[in-house]
């Protein structure tokens, strides 16, 4: 019941401002598609038999899922800490695990809602098939959970909005942009291609794209393992911090 209430509260929180939390990121992705699709269609080599615009759509969907999952948990927690209303959760008989999963589940819900919105509006522009829908669903779910957990971690550690913004701008954004959303890493020079393999975001985008085209830069099993391990690591660290009361209980 406590978990369900906290999850519902987090859900209600972003639904109440859905123009800002869902519609705005959908519009941003649509603009990316229109501009990049127009400029780069026919100029960039991606998978065999796949048009650039079609290649771009799953990347944009997954980028939206990841960024919004991160934004949901991180912004909710930092706002609660700054305004002080986190006290209502801390005073309640809610375990640290319930706290963690409620925030992550709400982040997953927002990530998937925005991702679905992006898919719906961009589907008008391309002819997309889902070759392996279960793979796409698995990567969307795990990716959103990983970024939701990462957002919670950033929210716990940060004390001010600008600390969180720094994490978002200097870690999340570069890792997302350099993950192969806009290109296939096969088109990169060897050094940058190798470096891309160290970016966990690459595996989420690549694995998600496999669900659409049945083709990817690396095998989806490897991507799945990398994402699952990253999620386990971030979730463990986050649970450990929540259990200790780090920066939440003095």
């Amino acid at each position, binding site marked *: *019941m*406590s978990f*369900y*209430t*906290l999850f*519902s*509260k987090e859900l*209600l*929180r972003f639904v*109440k*401002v859905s123009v800002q939390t869902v519609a705005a990121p959908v519009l941003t992705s649509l603009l990316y598609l229109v501009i990049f699709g127009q400029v780069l269609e026919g100029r960039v080599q991606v998978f065999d038999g796949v048009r650039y615009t079609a290649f771009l759509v799953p990347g944009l969907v997954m980028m939206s899922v990841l960024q919004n999952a991160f934004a949901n948990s991180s912004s909710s927690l930092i706002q*609660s800490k700054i*305004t*002080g*209303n986190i*006290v*209502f*959760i*801390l*005073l*309640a*008989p*809610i*375990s640290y695990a319930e706290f963690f999963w409620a925030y992550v589940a709400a982040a997953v819900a927002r990530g998937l809602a925005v991702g679905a919105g992006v898919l719906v509006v961009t589907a008008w522009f391309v002819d997309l098939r889902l070759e392996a829908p279960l793979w796409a669903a698995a990567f969307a779910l795990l990716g959103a959970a990983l970024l939701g957990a990462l957002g919670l971690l950033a929210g716990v550690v940060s004390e001010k909005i600008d600390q969180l913004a720094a994490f978002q701008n200097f870690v999340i954004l570069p890792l997302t942009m350099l993950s192969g959303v806009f290109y296939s890493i096969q088109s990169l020079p060897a050094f940058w291609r190798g470096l891309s393999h160290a970016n966990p975001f690459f595996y989420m985008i690549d694995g998600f794209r496999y669900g659409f085209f049945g083709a990817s830069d690396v095998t989806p099993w490897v991507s799945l393992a990398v994402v699952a391990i990253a999620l386990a690591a971030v979730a463990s660290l986050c649970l450990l911090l929540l259990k200790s*009361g780090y920066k939440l*209980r*003095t």
Partner: protein
Amino acid sequence: MEKRYGAVHALSGVSLAIEQGEFFGLLGPNGAGKTTLINVIAGLARADAGSVSIMGADAISDYRRARRMLGVVPQELVFDPFFTVRETLRIQSGYFGIRGNEAWIDEVMHHLDLSAKADANMRSLSGGMKRRVLVAQALVHKPPVIVLDEPTAGVDVELRQGLWQFVGRLNRDGHTIVLTTHYLEEAELHCSRIAMLKAGRIVALDSTRNLLASFAGSRTTVRVVARDGTQHLLQMEGYSELERELARLRSQGVEIADLELERPDLEQVFLRLTSS
């Protein structure tokens, strides 16, 4: 209990038991450790040494049971701007595992004069109204122990009276009340027992009556009104000095018209214990 924040010893050897059904006051100047003590009781802060037990439930190892026993009204005026008053109270009920709490939520809102604002967003409420919602939030799960940290700070007279009536009724119904306040007359009026804190230590712990009596026994103030209308304030360690002081006045040519014994109040006790 011991609690340090860096070099500051916020709580030092604090040990006390509050009986079930008591109306207990926690007084002290700013920085005395009152809020730290409440935070440790509520699990918002963790003691460096010592433990807290709430009706037999340890605040750390049995935190779920301990927190269900406790309703805390925080000192800061905090609220979630996304929700209405009713939503806020429903959410708070859910945190405590209570579904379908509408009847009690309506009753609490009625007693705190919040019913008309039930569907108003928290952002639109005045400071006093927000304070009422904080009190309501602390009561949604009908806790047997209610902790009020400065509940009437910045609150108008009407709400203050309504709040004390409601809290008094809860106390008569068997709820234990723990109160911190800067308004000492409130503590004197409502609290049956008081602990005074200074620099993280308890400097007095006794019934309100005993604290006042002990002060009266050790320090007596008599106001003397002379026939010419002038007033003289005599302060002495006890009544035994009264005759000598009156004789001194007479020798100065003062003709005594009236005598008035000034009763000690909690403020005098507080100032004496915390300023030394």
